[in-house]
């Protein structure tokens, strides 16, 4: 197989994007003040999280809704819920 980058892989997936309704919010005041591991930056299997100007931000469009980040977050900095009904990842195969 030709190696593909993660964004290339995600581009193969089907999503119903709920524009204007992010289902992930990073509470910077908690994240920056308390969290030392910032596990979301590496445990997320689709690389939703990145650090920009010292803040963790979520590029939520590629999220496959596994919940790993929420379970790994040692603080309550992640406000993470499922997207609204009908939106988000749509597995055609699964």
């Amino acid at each position, binding site marked *: 197989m030709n190696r593909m980058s993660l964004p290339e892989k995600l581009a193969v997936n089907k999503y*119903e994007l709920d524009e204007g309704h992010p289902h992930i919010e990073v509470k910077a005041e908690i994240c920056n003040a308390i969290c030392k591991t910032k596990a979301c930056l590496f445990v997320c*299997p689709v690389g939703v999280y990145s650090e920009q100007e010292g803040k963790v931000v979520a590029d939520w469009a590629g999220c496959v809704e596994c919940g790993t980040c929420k379970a790994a977050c040692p603080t309550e900095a992640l406000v993470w819920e499922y997207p609204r*009904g*009908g939106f988000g990842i749509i597995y055609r195969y*699964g």
Partner: protein
Amino acid sequence: MEEKFDVIIVGAGLAGSAAAYKLAKEGLEVVLVERGPYPGSKNLSGGVLYGRVLEKLIPEYWKEAPVERYITNQIISFMSENASFNIDFRSQVFNEQPYNAFSVLRGKFDRWLGEQAEQAGAMLVPGIKVDRVIVENGRAVGIAAGDEEMGADVIILADGANSFLAQQLGLRGRFNPAHLAVGVKELIGLPRETIEERFRLSGNEGVAYGLVGFATRGVAGGGFLYTNQESISIGLVMHLDELIETGLRPAEVIEDFLAHPSIAPLIRGGKLLEYGAHLVPEGGLAMMPRLYMDGLLVVGDAAGLSVNNGFVVRGMDLAIGSGIAAAEAVLEAKKKNDFSVQTLGVYQRLMAESFVLKDMQTYAGAPDFMKNERLYKVYPEFLASLMTAIYQHEGVPKQHLLPMVMQSLKNSHLSLLALAQDGLKGVRSL
């Protein structure tokens, strides 16, 4: 609440749809709510379906259901960085109906089971995310989704591994990362003939691999590979606590896994069809939430039902079994018109008497055993070292097997005492 039904089931995965099917068949008014646009659209599996339990619900289901291949060949592979040692078991026994196990693709299979529930009379409502369970005087009486509310005598939570609803209700606490694993999976398309030749399969026969060691870079868990009709499901399951400790990135670990010299030729020429991830409840009995309250039952992944003993990874059969048990409990409650824990609690007893909780009990020691890092870091290296010594001839005199074993144990920093301990523990917990 304007509308009231006998039962509302939250989540049309295998547990939810199995319960809906059985209850609708018995004539109850059942609403099956699914947040995805169709059942299965949010579901992803890293296991095969041990389907005998489904046969009890829908006899000869495989004739109609979109199953992929029946598994006739089971392989356990111990991987080091540049070697692999396989235990390869094939048996014609697995060729016979009713089949023991199938590879399935949940986006198709769950959709089919949801349709069966619908045809049995359940009302399937897709595209609705349930925000909360409505509780009055300590009793679940309905669900709320956005501005809408709907009532029922019983709510069945089949809302998956994350079950935020069970957490809201206090049936479980905050997750402990040691009880969870992250599954990452790629679906790789290949022509049917290529799959059959490459894996030595005839017709709809299939193979299931479990891969231990370098697959996960030594993190507890393992790799898997299943053949489908015209694709291969391949991926990793990695324990979340160790992932956090090591700082490894699942997306990178799977890339290295797919590039391993034992794996790359198996997927060569394939085309990526889908990339997904899912949480796996791996904590066994230790993570199980309370399974019921007045007016409510919990089933499937939401109930933490899974068994991973290294040889097999199970969840779908336990989900279906729990859905059936929940339906039986609801029927009992309906007969007595009592939906309190006194009657609904029969669910716990039905589960305890069925293979579902019996197997969870039998393998209660498995989660702890599977945390043993020697399984992933030492044994694959030991096997690779020993097999290399057995087969490598360098023009110098060979040793007998025993000194080779002792040398390989030494090379892998494995003591005889540790070996004995692991052996004993393994025999007891698996």
